[in-house]
């Protein structure tokens, strides 16, 4: 362990003398109850041994196969340049930019992240990111309550990712259901006492929703409309801000973050400028320094916990700077055409698979819904299909538990993999 702690015995003795105590134990003289045993942890390993164990444990996982799981996390290409930038020590080992004079790298990258999110969502103000997509959703739910001065109560349909709904409920926000029948949400009867209405597009089942209809119905009852969007889809679909959404949130994992068994990812949040004071989390703004030089700084800090304490608009402390940086670098590399390319490839491949499955006699759960790269297909026995797929070296889709499999297709899937999927599933039944 000494490799991380530089002191020699001589250093320790000199320092104890300077402090005027005899032993290291004496530094804990005030600690009651003091723990006198030895921690019962496996004994220390060298770096080599620890990493060998990591490799051995990794082999207990199933990996390296084509993945058809999505449902909020997508197996997308991560360009090598993303990892190269986010592993630079100056980004990796810094903290929240409390000292802007020596944090312009982090601050400018946040400013660029906010700009990209604003562009994609069509909303004026983005924050510096929050923990993940689910947390962006719940923060938006709480935000609608503060803005409308109503009790936190939101209307959602089963088109909202059930995991997002779960987090909303954990945070003690009341949830009411909107009808969801043919693969999209029916917004014609929004209750008039809700603070917010959620519209996820593409929704949990992969279909594009009518954000315009959602926002009009929402505004009719004096509530706020929150759009939950996959950022890749915003390269081809109209920006939610242009369709009347008041807040846009989502999971930025598809923008350059590896699957990593569920995290770290990053959540994005954007809103109209008039609502900025109720937007939680860090916001980076442009200013000038003493010499008049353009620079960036965290701003509108009066919303935050370290200043306002019990009256802050959230307890959130930092953003997800490093994964937000990954999203920024990814989006810079791809550009608008690259993002569109990712979307178009995914759509074309997903529809190729969807069409082939239908041609093989399988029914899509929502055949009339317009889907992008994810769809639910009905199968006689989803578990059996997934077993057969795994046998054939394919990680199948998500078992929805009701006779359907949610299948996601990204730009990484090849025609051979799609054909193999159809063949294995057809052979299984």
């Amino acid at each position: 362990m000494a490799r991380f702690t530089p002191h020699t015995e001589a250093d320790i003795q000199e320092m104890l003398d300077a402090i005027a105590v005899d032993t290291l134990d004496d530094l804990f003289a005030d600690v009651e109850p003091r723990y006198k045993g030895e921690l019962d942890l496996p004994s220390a390993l060298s770096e080599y041994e620890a990493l060998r164990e990591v490799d051995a444990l990794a082999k207990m996982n199933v990996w390296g196969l084509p993945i058809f799981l999505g449902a909020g996390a997508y197996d997308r290409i991560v360009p090598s340049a993303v990892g190269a930038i986010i592993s630079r020590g100056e980004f990796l080992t810094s903290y929240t930019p409390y000292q802007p004079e020596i944090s312009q790298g982090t601050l400018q990258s946040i400013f660029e992240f906010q700009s990209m999110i604003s562009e994609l969502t069509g909303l004026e103000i983005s924050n510096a990111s929050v923990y993940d997509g689910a947390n962006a959703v719940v923060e938006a739910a709480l935000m609608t309550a503060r803005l409308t001065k109503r009790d936190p109560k939101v209307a959602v349909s089963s088109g909202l990712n059930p995991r997002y709904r779960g987090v909303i409920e954990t945070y003690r926000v009341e949830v009411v259901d909107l009808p969801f029948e043919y693969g999209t949400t029916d917004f014609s009867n929004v209750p008039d006492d809700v603070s917010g209405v959620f519209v996820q597009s593409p929704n949990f089942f992969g279909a594009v929703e009518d954000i315009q209809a959602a926002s009009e119905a929402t505004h009719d009852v004096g509530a706020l409309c929150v759009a939950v969007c996959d950022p890749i889809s915003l390269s081809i679909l109209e920006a939610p801000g242009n369709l009347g959404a008041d807040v846009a949130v989502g999971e930025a994992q598809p923008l350059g973050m590896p699957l990593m068994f569920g995290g770290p990812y990053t959540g994005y949040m954007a809103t109209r400028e008039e609502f900025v004071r109720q937007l939680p989390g860090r916001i980076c703004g442009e200013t000038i320094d003493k010499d008049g030089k353009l620079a960036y700084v965290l701003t509108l800090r009066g919303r935050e916990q370290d200043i306002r304490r019990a009256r802050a608009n959230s307890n959130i402390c930092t953003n997800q700077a490093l994964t937000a940086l990954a999203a920024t670098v990814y989006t810079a590399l791809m550009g608008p055409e690259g993002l569109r390319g990712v979307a178009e490839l995914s759509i074309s491949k997903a529809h190729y698979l969807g069409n082939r499955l239908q041609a093989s006699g399988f029914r899509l759960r929502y055949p009339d819904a317009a889907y992008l790269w994810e769809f639910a297909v009905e199968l006689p026995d989803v578990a059996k299909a997934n077993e057969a797929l795994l046998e054939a070296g394919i990680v199948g889709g998500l078992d929805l538990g009701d006779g359907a499999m949610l299948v996601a297709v990204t730009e990484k899937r090849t025609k051979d993999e799609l054909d193999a999927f159809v063949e294995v599933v057809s052979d299984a039944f």
Partner: protein
Amino acid sequence: MPFDLIRDKGREGRRGYTLPKPDVEMKQLDAVVPKSVLRKEKPRLAEVDEPTVIRHYTNLSRENEGIDTTFYPLGSCTMKHNPRANEAAAVVPGFAGLHPLQAEAQAQGALRIMHELQGFLAEVSGLPYVSLQPLAGAQGELTSILMVKRFFDDAGDEGRTTVLVPSTAHGTNPATASMAGFRAKEVGLDEHGCVDVDELREMVDESTAALMITNPNTCGVYERNIKEIAEVLHEAGAFLYMDGANMNANMGRMRPAEADVDIMHFNLHKTFSTPHGGGGPGCGAIACSDDLAPFLPEPTVEKRGDEYRFVRPDKTIGRVAGFHGNFGQMLRAWNYIRMHGPELRDVTDMAVLNANYVRTQLGGTYRIPYDELCKHEVVVQPPQGKKALDIAKGLIDHGYHPPTIYFPLVVKEAMLIEPTETESKETLDDFIGTMLELAETSQEDLEAAPTHAPTRRLDETRAARQLKARW
């Protein structure tokens, strides 16, 4: 202008990445979705090549200081060295490529990492049940207080409306209490900067749900009455929550369970060396006693026979993250703990040694409001007439990242210094020398600082008044 924005370096038509060629027929978008939902104008993003992207962000990184570039004694944040083996672990494809919804049988290695880490944190805290799901320290706090809330709801005890926080608490504590639906009330301090037990005794009643204590507290002082504090709360049927931001002072020296703490959070990005990343991602794992265990977020990981599986605690508050938490940070922390084992205690010892060394060397010139043994950090005040802000900016000119300033709020002109265990005596001596020099530097020179940093002092008012948060 320090740097152009990435978008200003582009030109329409440039690309930084090439996608695989299509191997299926490309769909026309308007054949897939109604034309009315398609985007009419393309987003104004950067259009740049890869060399430009790499150079741009590499140059931006050079405008940043991190632990890798300088001593970073930011109090309460534990800016210790981040071992690179942790980073090597986190890019292993068998973990990095694992989808969170893969069946448990396909993720046994990942589940085992989680199960073992749960066990390690239980051992370090003495508290038997652990959830790794909270995504940051603040979320660990909120998860804990939501569990307390659910405990009282479940017991039909509707009168528990208040959460107490000491005046030294991190801002996240009162903000968390409010967010969980409680009223936050502040408890005062005794002459050591610790919770005033007499005042606490008067405040605690049947409306109290919990006290949120940080130990050692944000003055770097050990809360020596913690057992008595726990007793006061427990007698009233309330819980003792411990903010574990400062666990780097406790490992192997103090286990919260033995001080009768009921529930606590860890910051894996502080104590267990996962990188701070410019402000996240972190991991705010929590540990709790038997009473609160049924309310933990779902899922936790259990071992049955030779198999690891996810389980749902019976009265779970639900989930607090989209998936299982920041697994990448769990993997790094697991690796760190495996490289230390019981020697985690030496980490704590060296961290406390370093802080006390700084305390004794600065004392006399800087005022030490609580001049007794400190733990892993020490709060100091500049000499009469000098401001913490100016000393901080002066440190920047000498190549240091400043300590935390103006926190804790109870100490005027506070400078909270946390050296951590990974700094050598030479580094500390140089820093101390600079601090002593700055104490003698003229006010005029201090106010001019920083003069050598990438930017000089910023106009923060302008940023707020003329809000510009995007290109």
